[in-house]
Structures are given as C-alpha cells and as structure tokens.
C-alpha cells in the first residue's frame, strides 16, 4: 500500500506547516449536497425550521463529517493519494452557513522504518473568527527518500 506520494520524508521536517483555505462562505447548498452524498439526512443539517424552531439552534449547521472531509484535502493535497494510515478528528465547534474554514497541518514526528517513513501530522481547522472547529491528527506513510 504505497499509494501515490507527492513527497518523501527527506523533504519534510518536524515543525513544517502547511495551510489551506478549505471553503469560503460555506453555502447551504454544499451542506445539502453533502447530506445527499453521505446519506446523513438529519434535518438539523438542511431543514431551517426544524433546526431553529424544534432544536433551538440559530440555523442549520454543517455535518461534522463535511468539515472532516474538507480538512482531509489539506492532507491529501500535501502528502499524496492513498498514503494515509490514520486520520482522526475531534469535533470542537459547529460550522455554520457563511463560514470560511482554514486548515493548518504541522509535522509532529518523522520515523524512518527501512525504506518507508511514518509521518505524524497534527491538524486543526479554524473558522473566520479564528475559532477551532475540528482538531486532530493523521499518520501517513511516505518513502524515506525517493
């Protein structure tokens, strides 16, 4: 399972940071599109009346898994396709329509095991107010050196 890495461990160092804007002004349309694609039809994510009147939220809000999916793009755009071994997040705060999300990944550890290197990345996505919405970590396997 070598995947299609974009870089090797020799070109990464502990403390390296990568940032990317994931979405600007998140639309209700994208939230609905995610509901359809994922199968999560909890009305709290698409039915404004249900979300506000029945559930007491200010409006509908995005699926946590949409934010996790968006955040995953930082990892795959940076490291390559099919190289992740683990990816996990904690959902810290809701994401609302109109939010702009920026993800930041930091290299925490690089461990060379033969011709392969195991890279640990800390990841956090924040909204336009600078508040974290998800935080987590990922592990990727990259060639030690190309």
């Amino acid at each position, binding site marked *: 399972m*070598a995947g*299609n890495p974009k870089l090797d461990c020799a070109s990464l160092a502990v403390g390296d940071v990568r940032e990317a804007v994931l979405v600007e002004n998140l639309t209700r349309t994208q939230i609905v599109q995610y509901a359809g694609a*994922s199968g*999560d039809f909890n009305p709290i994510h698409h039915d404004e009346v249900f979300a506000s009147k029945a559930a007491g939220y200010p409006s509908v809000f995005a699926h946590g898994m949409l934010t996790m*999916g968006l955040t995953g793009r930082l990892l795959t755009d940076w490291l390559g396709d*099919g190289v992740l071994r683990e990816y996990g997040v904690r959902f810290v*705060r809701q994401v609302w329509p109109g939010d702009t999300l920026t993800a930041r990944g930091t290299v925490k550890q690089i461990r060379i095991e033969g011709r392969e290197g195991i890279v640990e990345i800390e990841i956090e996505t924040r909204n336009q107010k600078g508040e974290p919405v998800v935080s987590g970590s990922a592990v990727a396997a990259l060639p030690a050196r190309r």
Partner: protein
Amino acid sequence: MADEGFRFPVDLTAIMLFASAIGETNRIYYDEEYAAKTPLGGVIAPPTFATASAHWDPDYFLRGVRRIPAQKPRPEPAAPAAGGASGGGGGAGASLTRVLHGEQRFIYHQPMRPGMRLTVTQKRGKSWEKEGKRGGTMRFSETITEFRDPDGELVTTAISVGIVTGKAVEG
C-alpha cells in the same frame, strides 16, 4: 447493531458525488484514465468516504425517505448510531436534536476502490458520561465499524464517538 453486517458495494459514481460534496477537484476520485496511470492504478475513495456506507445500512436512523429492509428480521430495533456506519451510538430514544458527533477516526489498511464489495460490521466500544457546562449531562459512546473485502481482509476501520446532550449546544 448488525451482527452479520451489511453489504456496501463501492461505486465510482458514489465516490465522485462524495468527492464533489467535499469540494474535491482531485482527479484520483473520478477520472479513470488519469487514475490508471498513477501508481494506485485506478480511482480510490477519499479518506472519509466510508461514511457514505450509511446509504446501505438498514439500521441507519438518519436516512431520508428510502428504506432498505433489514436482511434478516431483528428481535428489536437497534439503538441509533449517529453518523451511521461511521457514527457513534446515540443510545435508544435519543432525539435527532440532541445527538452530536464528537470524534471520528479512520484507520486505513488498503485503498477503498470502486468495484469492491465490502461487508460492514459494527460493534460497540467504550461508553462514558460527563457533565458539560453547555450541554448538561453528556453521554458518550464509541462505535467501531469494520469494512472488509470478500476475502475478509480489512480495508478501513472507523471509530466514532457519539454524544447525546441534555440540551442544544451552540459552539
């Protein structure tokens, strides 16, 4: 919670739709000609795609209007699992408005590819309670979901934590 699991046939169109929904333009998720020329040899699913197995989960409580009948009659309805196959158990009777997805982790054993006919099984993990300032008493429960190929080899393991809160939580 399904014992013998349910079937999840991985499909190119489902992957493309999912990738579009998360704003992906990466051709590895839809362009078969491009993907065939990469070391992966074909299209793969994005890292969080396993969650879309919810469409095939007969016990999934957040589905829309379409119902897939359970493959075998069940003695009693399973407790709802937030996020379906990748969601944490919310506990029986939990209202849609009080179930939150707390954490999600995936372990990747091999790439998930179109054409794979996966079997999905779920089991309960740990559960615990915590007093929350914003949400009242919060009940946490972990669900472990395994996606296996027809040879029984693991493709993906999903571990999720569902939270049932006492009241609406605004972040």
